[in-house]
């Protein structure tokens, strides 16, 4: 009756592109020049989307907003790995990948303006509305992944969350369900190292989130979340595995929240300025640009053209946002149930009389 080791775990971290734009050629994923450029373009589009959102908020044209600045590589890498039929299950900082999946930016802005119509996505986009209750959406990603498996669909569900979410019970239940039922799910945790004012060290005494996969019998890997090539490589591996029945994966992308938690927050109160400097040098966009330039795929002229194109596209979306008529107050009753019960009918009529519609 010996005392013996029953489990030993190793957790990998993947880095391909360093902060100066140099790559490890042995790890470079198999991507065409066009795909490399697509990754870069996606990140620029997201940054424009984000900068505009912050501007709109400052000008009072939208409400409280959660910036994704610094996390573009996490979202672009996963976006390129996903197929059109896949499902996105986002939390509230994933509007970058949401637009890449086909949700127009004006809807994202409408959501942050406090307009429910921002969650009315175009037909054919498999995406649940962003979940604000932290971590809760990961169980939905497990459930969608199960549905896809039961239907024998060649599709996967990708659930996003932050590092703070890894403390919620729902996170652990989601990994457990996914593991038990071998669902077609990939969990992408953007560990941006802060949950509002609480540092990652306060979310776990473990070294990483990725290693938690072991406890649920699923695959786990950590990647440099500011390295779009590493995110893509890990995401693609995970998505392919889930699609082909190989089981779920937990991907932890180590990144940094470059902005306040939301526009209602003031991060100077709680985090050291040096951190920001450190991470600014590791910007996901800058390093990819350096890499593309070194490969002769990119130059200043193209940069200017892309910046102009992205800005124009966003301006057009802002116009669409501001052309939206104000929502009618009676809308709050309309989509509660398939059939409106009598009490809601009465209340809707009362409201209609009040607002004269």
């Amino acid at each position, binding site marked *: 009756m010996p005392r013996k080791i029953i489990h030993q775990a190793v957790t990998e971290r993947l880095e391909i592109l360093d902060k100066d734009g140099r790559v490890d050629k042995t790890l470079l994923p198999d991507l065409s020049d066009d795909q490399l450029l697509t990754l870069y373009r996606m990140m620029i589009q997201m940054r424009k989307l984000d900068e505009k959102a912050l501007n709109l908020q400052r000008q009072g044209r939208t409400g409280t907003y959660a910036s994704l600045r610094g996390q573009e590589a996490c979202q672009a890498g996963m976006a390129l790995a996903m197929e059109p039929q896949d499902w996105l299950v986002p939390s509230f900082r994933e509007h970058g990948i949401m637009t890449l999946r086909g949700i127009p930016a004006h809807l994202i802005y409408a959501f942050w303006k406090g307009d429910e119509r921002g969650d009315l996505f175009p037909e054919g986009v498999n995406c649940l509305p962003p979940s604000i209750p932290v971590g809760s959406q990961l169980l939905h990603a497990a459930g969608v992944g199960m549905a896809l498996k039961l239907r024998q669909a060649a599709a996967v569900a990708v659930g996003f969350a932050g590092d703070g979410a890894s*403390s*919620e*019970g729902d996170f652990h239940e989601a990994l457990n369900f996914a593991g038990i039922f071998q669902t077609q799910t990939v969990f992408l945790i953007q560990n941006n190292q802060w949950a509002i004012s609480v540092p990652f060290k306060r979310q776990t005494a473990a070294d990483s989130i990725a290693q938690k996969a072991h406890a649920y019998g699923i695959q786990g890997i950590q990647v440099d979340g500011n390295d779009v090539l590493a995110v893509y490589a890990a995401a693609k591996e995970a998505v392919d595995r889930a699609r082909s029945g190989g089981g779920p994966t937990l991907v932890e992308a180590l990144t940094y929240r470059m902005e306040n938690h939301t526009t*209602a927050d003031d991060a100077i109160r709680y985090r050291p300025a040096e951190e920001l400097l450190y991470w600014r040098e590791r910007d996901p966009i800058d390093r990819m640009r350096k890499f593309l330039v070194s490969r002769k795929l990119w130059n200043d002229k193209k940069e200017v053209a892309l910046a102009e194109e992205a800005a124009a596209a966003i301006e057009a979306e802002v116009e669409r946002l501001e052309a939206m008529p104000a929502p009618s107050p009676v809308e709050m009753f309309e989509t509660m149930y398939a059939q409106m019960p009598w009490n809601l009918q009465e209340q809707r009529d009362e409201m209609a009389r009040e607002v004269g519609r």
Partner: protein
Amino acid sequence: MTRQQAAASQQERSLRAVESPAERLTMVQAINQALKAEMERDETVLVLGEDVGRDGGVFRVTEGLLDAFGSERVMDTPLAESGIVGFSIGLAAAGFRPVAEIQFMGFLYPALNQLFAHAARMRNRSRGRTHLPMVVRMPYGGGIHPPEHHSESYEALLVNTPGLKVVVPSTPYDAKGLLASAIRDEDPVVFLEPKRIYRAFREEVPSEPYTVPIGKAKVVKTGTDLTIIAYGSMVRQALEAHDALARDGISAEVVDLRTLSPVDAGTIIESVTKTGRAVVVHEAPRTGGFGAEIVALINERALVHLKAPVERVAGYDVVFPHALLENHYLPNRERVVAAAKRALEF
């Protein structure tokens, strides 16, 4: 409240009347003072929750506590509401007085299992041997145009859970005194803070500690024609309606419940017996809301005095809308006045 507590609170009040200096504080500041004072008074009082330490809480309610009392008494917790409440239960069972913060009422739900299945029952399950002197405080309600899930008021769920006390202040003065009572209470108290009026106005608040008793409503305006019953941020709506009605020569009495569980039936019944008409106001959804309980109480105890059915002014039976439609959802002065007139013209 025990008789001893009542006596102590009486004594503190009279002391205050004589000598205590007062400051004009917002509700946030008043709650902050209460926390500070109770932590100074009793070293078993602990504060824990998300962002309550370095950040001082997202509404700054716990500002300065970390520096004053250190990280063992003011704990930034992992992001886990069930964890926060369950951990507090353990702390309370073993001799501390935790004051847990839930960042918004809309994020309480992961903790409901701990709150309902354990906090509310521990005294009874242990046949009185183990009790839980703990407070779970949280901002609730609408009016600040936030993103989704930041405007909920599901107090009815809590009131319908035997074993919990539920307290809702509507003024800085009451907030400070009621929170002190809640922290000193021997049973779990859920303390709901109407975030809409966290900074809406200031009021004289004595610097000295004092208590306002749990379970006691307050007649904020006396009147003879009807009774408006409200709590939390809706007390402002009730007072505005009172003034509007007064301009029409109607004399409304306004009762601020202050505690929802145990509710002060005596004050409600006394008032309605006098006026014969009542309007209950809350921002939570109408169906199954706390207003229904008040109507039932009045029917049971004052039916013969009623001159009209009791009116309810409440939130609609819908998901609390996002910011753009929020003002259409929340009860306002006009809706309270209209209900009062229906009762008067019945």
